[in-house]
């Protein structure tokens, strides 16, 4: 089975081992130790870590297209935000008549705007199944349409980067409009419960953290499975010599489209897990700066390794939390400096520092064992 192939890789087993151990440890330190104990992990920290993990999943999605397909998407924040909005809409509907205005159906901001009925695209979001499906479908469809148009006309390289940036910028402007029906500037917030669990309770927060960790593990395995398959090697072929791949009979644009859509859906899932943990989704997630920052996480961690993306996301976001707490003004200097330093001095990222023995090419080499299997 192509999906189980990653489990045969040492690197994947190592990654999953560390991730699951970390999840277990955090859970233990949160539940078993009393508050005030020096090693106790507060629920606040658990949620913060959960947020990092959802960012890590987004970074993995970006690495899948950038590292293995050579498409530098500066618009993955849009997919992340769409997933987040789908989740946010579900959470809004769950509020029911407990909002400030007490309308049983309409979310507060619609009552405030004096809307009489729910817009058509808000229907069905009171049902978890439909909402969760939309978490995948909304970013997936956008990626499908956008990717179909772009790849069919062979828009690649910096051109593609620029128009992905334009895409997320246009969406940001659109979502800022109150008329769009997504809460405008303020976005969606004041959530209460998810699947019947109170979002403010410690147990739900720990559960969300664990769910995010597991989603990251699954997403990682899925990406690894794609990368280790023949399709993954075709992706690398498209990345390095697009024309040559075409002359071998591969429909390059379809390979690109497939991987792009999968990546967008993963980003959507990441966004959906992010929203209940931070308690808000607003158009700033669409901002081009956020998307380009995600690319930095991947670059810092090490492109085309997947685990590097996770490392990068955790490192940068941890640094951001520390910096903005201690000296907020310095953060943008640090971030800007990081962009320059990583690209100039660390082209293979952190992963490249300690993985010098293993060549990425060998990583994807089908083993003799597999051949005889």
């Amino acid at each position, binding site marked *: 089975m192509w999906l189980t192939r990653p489990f045969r890789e040492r690197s994947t087993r190592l990654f999953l081992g560390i991730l699951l151990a970390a999840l277990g440890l955090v859970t233990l330190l949160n539940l078993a130790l009393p508050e005030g104990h020096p090693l106790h992990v507060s629920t606040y920290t658990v949620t913060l870590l959960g947020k990092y993990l959802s960012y890590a999943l987004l970074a993995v999605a970006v690495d899948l297209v950038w590292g293995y397909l050579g498409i530098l998407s500066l618009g993955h924040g849009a997919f992340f935000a769409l997933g987040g909005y789908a989740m946010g809409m579900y959470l809004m509907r769950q509020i029911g008549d407990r909002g400030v205005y007490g309308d049983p159906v309409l979310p507060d901001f619609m009552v405030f705007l004096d809307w009489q009925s729910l817009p058509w695209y808000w229907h069905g979001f009171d049902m978890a199944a439909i909402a969760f499906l939309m978490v995948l479908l909304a970013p997936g469809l956008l990626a499908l349409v956008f990717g179909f148009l772009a790849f069919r006309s062979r*828009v690649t390289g910096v051109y593609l980067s*620029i128009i992905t940036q334009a895409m997320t910028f246009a969406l940001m402007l*659109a979502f*800022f409009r109150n008329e769009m029906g997504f809460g405008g500037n303020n976005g969606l917030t004041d959530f209460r419960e998810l699947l019947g669990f109170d979002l403010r309770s410690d147990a739900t927060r720990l559960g969300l953290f664990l769910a995010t960790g597991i989603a990251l593990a699954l997403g990682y395995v899925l990406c690894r499975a794609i990368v280790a398959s023949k399709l993954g090697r075709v992706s690398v072929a498209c990345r390095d010599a697009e024309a040559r791949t075409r002359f071998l009979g591969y429909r390059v644009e379809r390979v690109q489209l497939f991987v792009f859509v999968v990546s967008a859906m993963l980003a959507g899932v990441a966004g959906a897990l992010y929203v209940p943990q931070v308690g808000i989704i607003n158009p700033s997630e669409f901002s081009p700066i956020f998307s380009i920052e995600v690319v930095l996480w991947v670059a810092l961690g090490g492109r085309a390794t997947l685990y590097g993306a996770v490392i990068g996301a955790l490192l940068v976001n941890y640094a951001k939390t520390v910096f903005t707490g201690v000296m907020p003004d310095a953060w943008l200097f640090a971030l800007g400096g990081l962009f320059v330093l990583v690209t100039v001095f660390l082209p293979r990222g952190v992963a490249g520092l300690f993985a010098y023995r293993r060549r990425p090419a060998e990583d994807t080499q089908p083993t003799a064992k597999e051949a005889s299997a």
Partner: protein
Amino acid sequence: MRMLQRLLPGLLCLCLLCSLPLAAQAQDESGQALLASLDADSYAEKGEAIEEIIESGDPRSRRWLEALLGGKLQRHKENGRFVVVVENRGRHWPVVDALSFEAAGEMSRRELDRVGINNALRGQLQGALAVLDLHAEAVEERRDAARALLGDIDASLVEPLQAVIDSEADGEVRHLLEQALAIHRLAQGDVAAVDALAGSLNSQVRAALTAASRSDDPTLAQAASAALADIEQKMRLNRGLETLYFGLSLGSVLVLAAIGLAITFGVMGVINMAHGELIMLGAYTTWAMQQLLPGQPGLALILAIPAGFLVSALAGVAIERGVIQFLKGRPLETLLATFGVSLILQQLVRTVISPQNRTVVTPDWLSGSLMLNEGLSLTLNRLYVLGFALVVFAGLMLVMRRTRLGLEVRAVTQNRGMARAMGIRATRVDILTFALGSGVAGLAGVALSQLTNVGPNLGQNYIIDSFMVVVFGGVGNLWGTLVAGLSLGVINQVLEPWAGAVLAKILVLVLIILFIQKRPRGLFPQKGRAAEG
């Protein structure tokens, strides 16, 4: 009364003028004589005196006549001095001298004699006041006065106005007054008046015609409707021209912002995300120049043009030497690194100068507008920026077509390896190109400082638009950038009225994204074998 209010500002000016120590003896004497004649025994004589005052053109006429109308012009019983009462309540009234208009203390009501008028004189005075400004010295003032009369005259004014028209030298004033009379006649049901009003864009004229088009008299209604339709069409044309102007203006800003990018992107294949911040530096240079030369915003602005170019060009060279040269042939990495530079530059400005917007003063010769006709006026600052953009573009074309640097730049653009083999020092060309492109960004910043707020986010707002322009126009083609910038500006303005500003912007972005699908290499692609690679 309404008209009085409207004329009040002019009035205040007059007061100011009068309070200046220009009260020459002669003026005093003639003034005293005029006032004395107002105080004649019979009303008929008083009427003649009013005419006399109007014809005298004395700057104090308006105040005298208003005082007379308000019953505030009074004569001191004993010394015969004329005063104007400021406040006629109580027993002692504060007064001003009727000749110098300087405060003359308080006087008891018993000391004063009112210069009386009757109803006939009152009517005459009202009409006279209305046409008084039509006798002003300055043509502009007379035009304003005439314009104010549109739709605001009654039967009593017809005759005096007719007299003014006969003696008026300025055609424009005559025309306006004739229109004012025509509006009056139109209200009386005179069909011929429609002809006199045809083609005017004045809102009073349109209001009068609209009223006439609903008249019971079918001939009149029909004529008025036809004239209205005609005016409507003219206004549509005006609106179209205005949209075009705003579009071109917006487009010229886009061209300015994008053209430097087109050079660096086209020649070096380098995505410079810090380009927006180079624009910002140019804008801040303008601000700094104005701080250095307080009180001379115009001179500072002109000096800021070379200064802004230099500052941004130097910053560009620093970026090229410090970052980009290490990333040759890795465009995507260059994009990320220069984005980092842009973050640093932004934060630097926030920390060193201020996170708040700075005010850049617009010199007098840049403010105001150029009025083409009644419904169309072009703001001067936008007009200058449009011209500036075209000059910069022409200058760049000259550099590219007529200088050694331009030749080398074109050679490197088309075939880097070959250019190098022919002895062109590509590194030097890179540095100069980058300096040139960045310097032009600085120029864009100087121009933008006249149109928008100067703040740390200035550049960010333009970077995506600039990229769109370059991509839309076709990389490596300056004409493409010009056409793309101007047409995107116009498209944006055309869409705006029915879609709203934000939606128009979104639509433009979507249009470009779709356009790139159709023509991945832009409007004016580079052709041939080199482009195939």
